[in-house]
């Protein structure tokens, strides 16, 4: 078939066939980690963290807002890295990983917008302002949607992978450009009518809470992406022998 057997050792897991069971073994661990971190994080969020002097209880949104915002950016980088890898080395798994990550990234981007809007209303009196950060988050959301829509519109999975990879890479070049352009655009017009809290002034518990919630989001993202990539592997490799030989396909256990 291809010359994958020649390639270095760790590449073994770049084949869907060996990655599928590996992912299956890893998933429960990531779910467990996600649950533990989320438990601690939520406890800090609602019980350990004190009421904020200026924002009252409303600031507690930060404990999901910031992790979601971070993850939305981080996942995009990871997705583009997988896509680029797939384009360069022509490994089948890379494209599947990129495809599996995209919906999670889009959901994170959406959550950062949604929670941000719900935070903005009590803080600024408006659901939305054209702040640099908000605007670039919005554009990032569009980039995700574009990626997903492009892949959904192409029937041949291999073609979809490659086209998506090019789009993701073009996006990666553009995301910093977009971010800085928006930032500059915004500051030219108006002074800092919106000043976000600066991290150093943040109380230590809050910082911890945010970090732990971020870990929870991170573990969640890995777990859900792995779950999805397993489904994608099955869909794409449906006609191969190794899938037909899988225990869950033979009907022993799901």
């Amino acid at each position, binding site marked *: 078939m291809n010359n994958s057997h020649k390639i270095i050792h760790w590449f073994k897991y770049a084949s869907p066939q060996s990655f599928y069971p590996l992912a299956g073994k890893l998933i429960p661990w990531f779910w467990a980690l996600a649950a533990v971190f989320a438990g601690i994080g939520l406890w800090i969020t609602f019980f350990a963290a004190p009421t904020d002097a200026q924002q009252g209880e409303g600031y507690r949104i930060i404990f999901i807002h910031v992790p979601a915002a971070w993850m939305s950016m981080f996942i995009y980088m990871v997705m583009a890295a997988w896509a680029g890898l797939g384009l360069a080395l022509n490994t089948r798994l890379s494209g599947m990983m990129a495809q599996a990550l995209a919906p999670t990234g889009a959901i994170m981007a959406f959550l950062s917008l949604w929670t941000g*809007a719900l935070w903005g209303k009590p803080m600024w009196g*408006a*659901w*939305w*302002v*054209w*702040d640099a950060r908000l*605007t670039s988050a*919005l554009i990032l959301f*569009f980039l995700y*949607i574009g990626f997903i*829509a492009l892949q*959904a*519109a192409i029937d041949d999975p291999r073609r979809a992978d490659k086209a998506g990879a090019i789009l993701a890479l073009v996006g990666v070049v553009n995301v910093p450009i977009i971010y800085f352009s*928006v930032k500059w*655009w*915004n500051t030219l*017009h*108006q002074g800092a009518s919106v000043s976000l809290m600066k991290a150093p002034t943040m109380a230590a518990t809050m910082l911890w809470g945010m970090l732990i919630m971020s870990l929870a989001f991170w573990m969640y993202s890995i777990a859900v992406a792995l779950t999805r990539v397993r489904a994608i592997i099955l869909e794409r490799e449906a006609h191969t022998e190794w899938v037909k030989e899988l225990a869950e396909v033979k009907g022993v256990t799901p």
Partner: protein
Amino acid sequence: MSAIIAIIRRDLLLAMRRKSEVLTALFFFIIVVSLFPLGIGPETALLRKIAPGILWVAALLATMLGLSRLFAPDHADGTLEQMVLSPTPLGLLITGKIVAHWLTTGLPLVLLAPVLGIQFDLDTGALGILVIALLLGTPLLSLIGAIGAALTLGVRGGGVLLSLLVLPLYVPTLIFGAGAMEAHIAGLGAGGHLSLLAALLALAVFFAPWATTAALRIALE
């Protein structure tokens, strides 16, 4: 009647099959609306002032963008010929196609517009007027657009010629639609504008399918 329903179902099926179709007309609307603040600047007061105009122009452009695909694919693959030769009167089939076009492009805009209005910091009353005006206006845009789409069918450079023909005809809709919101924001009451929109719609419902059918027959000869 069953043929109309059949054609609406067929067009909706086609739209669903090209999954992205419906969503992307919507996203075009969203993106155009979001581009303006980027071009104009983030001042809330200024943005609130121009919001009605921007929302309406964007709705108009989003509707227009899909128009060239209203008849062109059916023309290219001979379906339109079969429609002319169908025992059902052509006018009915065409009406079905226009309804399907509105369902896939106009209706989603109506539903989404309030969310975008929030980005421009509009109040609830203004948002309500926006929805009502769009509910009257978008079918109007589909009806007028269908005439343009039929006239430019199979014509060289049709796509862009279409916008040239249709945009001037969209002007009254734009003026009354955006005017309704502006009047409301200025505290004048939007009733007048809305009833004018309704009157235009009634007019178009009667004449547009007929004009479209006539134009299509010419295009097919």
